[in-house]
């Protein structure tokens, strides 16, 4: 890229006063010596003038009081609840927030589902096993459900005549709930 191209890329920033002192000086010196770049500068200045002129002319015709009345009307107007909700959502639910909120929600739901079995008490909520069939081959067997721990217990008594035991012996030979 030659010097003129470099300078022309910087004319805008130079006019805006945004160049460093040394860069600004380099542009100023070049413009003083180069007629082509000087024309480019004039064109840019005219462009800015045209754009500004047009808008300043428009704005100068805006009377304040009618404008303020328009603002007041908006302030005093009763807004429906859904307008406020819509306005809030437009401001709060921006695309970047939604883009992050949706995967964050998925991750949170995933974590909750995974934690289900690890939280104290929660894991045992559905721990009741159902006994579909049982054959104790002549022995006495008890099917028990312990509510506190939600545990199904299959208890095999030691002899085939377990039902004839006294209550005292049963408490020593088997669980009591």
């Amino acid at each position, binding site marked *: 890229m030659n010097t003129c191209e470099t300078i022309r890329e910087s004319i805008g920033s130079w006019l805006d006063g945004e160049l460093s002192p040394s860069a600004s000086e380099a542009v100023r010196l070049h413009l003083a010596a180069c007629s082509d770049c000087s024309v480019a500068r004039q064109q840019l200045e005219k462009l800015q003038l045209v754009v500004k002129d047009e808008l300043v002319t428009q704005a100068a015709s805006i009377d304040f009081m009618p404008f303020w009345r328009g*603002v007041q009307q908006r302030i005093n107007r009763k807004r429906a609840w859904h307008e406020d909700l819509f306005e809030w959502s437009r401001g709060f639910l921006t695309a970047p927030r939604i883009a992050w909120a949706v995967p964050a929600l998925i991750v949170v739901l995933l974590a909750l589902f995974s934690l289900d079995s690890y939280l104290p008490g929660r894991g045992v909520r559905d721990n009741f096993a159902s006994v579909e069939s049982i054959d104790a081959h002549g022995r006495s067997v008890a099917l028990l459900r312990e509510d506190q721990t939600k545990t199904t217990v299959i208890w095999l008594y030691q002899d085939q005549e377990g039902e004839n035991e006294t209550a005292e012996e049963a408490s020593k030979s088997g669980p009591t709930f």
Partner: protein
Amino acid sequence: MELSDSELVKKSQAGETSAFQELVSRYHQKVFMVILGLLRNREDALDVAQETFFRAFRKINSFQGGSSFYTWIYRIAVNMSIDAQRRQKRNPLDFRESMDDVMEAQNQVAKDPFADVHDKELREKLTVAINDLTPDHKAVIVLRTIEGLSYKDIGEILGCSEGTVMSRLHYARKKLQDKLRAFL
């Protein structure tokens, strides 16, 4: 003694509508200019400008003073203009007619009829050229040209870096110059 913007904001936050009115008085033309530069239609720009100050009034308590009041109000104005642009479905020809009507209504008659024709054509071309820019490029051109805002302030308003402001300005000016070379 004239109150500063931050003093007026504090009073507005305390419920003094007259203080907010003073802020509107100070900035309504500048805000209108920015919005007109972006929307290129006077009626729409007026509507959006009033809506901008209404939005600022409702959100005044959320203004913490981290930035200046004018960068804050310009930020609202630019965002609302971009929203309005998305809803806009007019074509460039309509713009030209609207501006012509307005200019005639304001009795803006040039002394030199040839100059008048030249200026009218230039404005038409300018409108088309600016409309061809993306909203981001339009915004930097308008904020810099009208207000002479620094790249830092423009970056704060648009939520981008100074480097981005610089490159967007350079691109936008180059595009406009290419399209309006015959008139410059």
